[in-house]
C-alpha cells in the first residue's frame, strides 16, 4: 500500500518535471518559459519530497521534507518575479504573437522610470511648460 502511494507520488513528480523541461525547450520566449518551469518545477520537487516523507515515515525525515517544501514554495515565486523583471528591463525580445504588454506604455527603457498610469495630467503639462520656457 505504502509502496503504491510512494510510486504514484514520485511518478507524478517526475512527470511534472519532465513537463517543465519540455516546456522550457519548446516555448518561444522568456515569460512563457518561466510560466512552464516555475510552477511545475516547484510542484514536481514538492511531490517527490512528499513521496520521500511517506516512504521513510520518520520524524526527522518528515521535518526536513516540510522544511524543503516550505522553502521551495516561498522562494520559487520570488525568484521567478525577480528574474522576469530583470529580463523585461534588460530588453529580452517577446514572442511575436504576444497579445498584451501592459508595461510597454508605462515603462521608459532610457530613463528606467516606471509610471503607474494614474499620474495627474496637469503635473505633466506643467513640467512640459517649464521645459518649453527654458
Amino acid at each position, binding site marked *: 500500500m505504502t*509502496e503504491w502511494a*510512494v*510510486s504514484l507520488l*514520485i*511518478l507524478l*513528480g*517526475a*512527470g511534472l*518535471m*519532465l513537463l*517543465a*523541461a*519540455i516546456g*522550457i*525547450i519548446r516555448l518561444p520566449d*522568456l515569460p512563457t*518559459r*518561466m510560466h512552464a*518551469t*516555475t510552477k511545475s*518545477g*516547484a510542484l*514536481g*520537487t514538492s511531490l*517527490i*519530497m512528499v*513521496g*520521500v516523507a511517506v*516512504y*521513510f515515515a*520518520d520524524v*526527522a*525525515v518528515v521535518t*526536513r*521534507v516540510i*522544511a*524543503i517544501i516550505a*522553502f*521551495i514554495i516561498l*522562494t520559487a515565486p*520570488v*525568484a521567478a518575479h*525577480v*528574474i*522576469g*523583471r*530583470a*529580463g523585461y*528591463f*534588460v530588453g*529580452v525580445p517577446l514572442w511575436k504573437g504576444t497579445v498584451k504588454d501592459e508595461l510597454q506604455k508605462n515603462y521608459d527603457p532610457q530613463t528606467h522610470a516606471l509610471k503607474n498610469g494614474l499620474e495627474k495630467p496637469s503635473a505633466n503639462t506643467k513640467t512640459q511648460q517649464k521645459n518649453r520656457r527654458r
Partner: protein
Amino acid sequence: MKSNSDYWKYYAEESSLSTVIINLVYLMLSSALLLAFIRMAKGPSLPDRVVALELIASIVAGIVGVHAIDTGVSSFLDVAIVLSLTAFLATIGFARFLERGGPRDD
C-alpha cells in the same frame, strides 16, 4: 566486517519499491535534465540561461530525493536543502547583476 558489496546489498534490500518504477523515474528525470541543459547551452539570452539553471537545480533536488528512496539513506535530503537554497541565491544574484547592467556576453 562487511565488504563494500555487502554494504550496498544491505541497502538494496532496504528499498521495497519496485526497481522498474525507480528506474523509470530516474529515466524521466535524466531526460528532463538533458532538455534543461540543452536550453541552458542554447538559450538566446542570459535570463533564459538563469531560468534553465533554476530548473536544473530543482530537477537535481528531485533526483536526490529519489536516490534517498533508492538507497534507503535519508541523510541525502540535506543535499536537497542546500541545493535549493543555493539555487535561490544564485538566481537573485544573477537578477541583480542584470538589473545593474553589468558587462555580459549572451
